[in-house]
């Protein structure tokens, strides 16, 4: 199918983008790399009156160091972040997850913040944002605000972004000394949407595990024990409590099984990386 009609607006500054969103918010789809929005337009799941292209706004294409965090601007493409020399040292979990996003041929254009805005429940970047307790910097003509990842993802492809707001940057906490990080996912083929994806952070006391692909948004669990028997028990409890669903790709039971297996393997890897 072909997209329905829309006006195309190319913002040249953040202020211009804010003006368009303030005036026509509910009717606007923000276009960055287009790797999630264009399929929605072509299948007409999205029929905006206005497509607001933000890719030519100067200054948004920047990855920078903040105190204790990495700031990833709205138009930074996934391939650019993957090639950033400070990434593996700055935040190994993000570095581990990036190769799983789509394919090499979509990461060249897809943006980090676009994936956050799209909020697909199997997507890697929202999962990593939740696991690391990152924040999303939203801005509008009214001002700026930061929303933590746990509050930002509100459901299936739904977020806390208001209609007049733009994601200006993602704020990713830097690696903490003494913590180990690991990312694993299971898909039928590399590059497919994950059936289950896991991100784990371990320190000497316990582990935090974030799980994607199972519920309508990524979910995270704190304080998992490192003792193997106790961990298995905890993972059983988590898998049983998750709102897993059957679909074309996997049954709910299979997803729960994967949560146990992948969860354990991911936590084990995070513990190893700590050493």
């Amino acid at each position, binding site marked *: 199918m072909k997209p329905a009609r829309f*006006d*195309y607006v190319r913002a040249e500054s953040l202020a211009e983008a804010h003006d368009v969103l303030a005036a026509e918010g509910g009717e606007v789809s923000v276009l960055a790399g287009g790797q999630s929005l264009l399929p929605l337009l072509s299948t007409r799941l999205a029929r905006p009156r206005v497509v607001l292209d933000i890719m030519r706004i100067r200054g948004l294409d920047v990855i920078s160091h903040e105190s204790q965090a990495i700031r990833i601007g709205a138009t930074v493409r996934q391939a650019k972040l993957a090639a950033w020399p400070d990434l593996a040292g700055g935040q190994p979990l993000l570095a581990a997850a990036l190769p799983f996003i789509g*394919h*090499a*041929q979509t990461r060249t254009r897809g943006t980090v913040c676009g994936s956050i805005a799209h909020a697909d429940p199997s997507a890697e970047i929202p999962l990593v944002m939740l696991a690391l307790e990152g924040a999303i910097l939203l801005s509008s003509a009214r001002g700026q605000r930061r929303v933590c990842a746990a509050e930002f993802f509100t459901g299936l492809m739904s977020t806390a972004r208001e209609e007049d707001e733009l994601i200006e940057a993602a704020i990713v906490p830097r690696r903490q000394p003494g913590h180990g990080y690991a990312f694993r996912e299971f898909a039928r083929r590399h590059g497919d949407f994950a059936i289950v994806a896991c991100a784990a952070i371990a320190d000497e006391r316990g582990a935090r595990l974030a799980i994607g692909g199972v519920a309508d948004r990524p979910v995270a669990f704190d304080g998992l024990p490192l003792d193997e028997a106790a961990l298995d028990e905890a993972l059983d409890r988590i898998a049983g409590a998750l709102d897993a669903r059957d679909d074309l790709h996997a049954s709910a039971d299979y997803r729960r099984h994967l949560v146990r297996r992948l969860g354990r393997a991911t936590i084990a890897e995070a513990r190893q990386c700590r050493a």
Partner: protein
Amino acid sequence: MPRLSADARHRVAFVLNGRAVEGQAEPRMLLTDFLRHVLGMTGTHVGCEHGVCGACTVEIDGVPARACLMLAVQADGAILRTVEGLAPEPGRLSLLQQAFRRHHALQCGFCTPGILMSLDNYLRDNPDPREDDVRIFLTGHLCRCTGYVPIVAAALDAAARLREMKETQT
């Protein structure tokens, strides 16, 4: 700030295979349709039209990307290469295309333009790839004829010959 109205057609101009081209497009027109229907460059194929199959992969500003996941108006000012730009002259195939022919890396040929554009770019950045990496890279393309084995063989063969060529040149 430019606002292109939904109901009108607008001038889109970019560099295609080293030549300046231009045409008219509604905002909703995909780059694939602009290439094929406005410019008449039908080498770029349209498969799934939502970024999954890889048939429409072209090179946009030096990197491989899906032409179906881009609006024509977004490409204004860009530098594009399509499969028509691979052969050095009419009647002579590129080294990668020759390898595809030698290894029977295509049957129906529908997916081939996209795979060639992907691999042409990939082999430039990765002159000596491992087979596993080529296979992971090719997950961005669907081929329903070959079973991929001859495509992988052609890619590795082309990489080896490109390396050889570079060595004899230096």
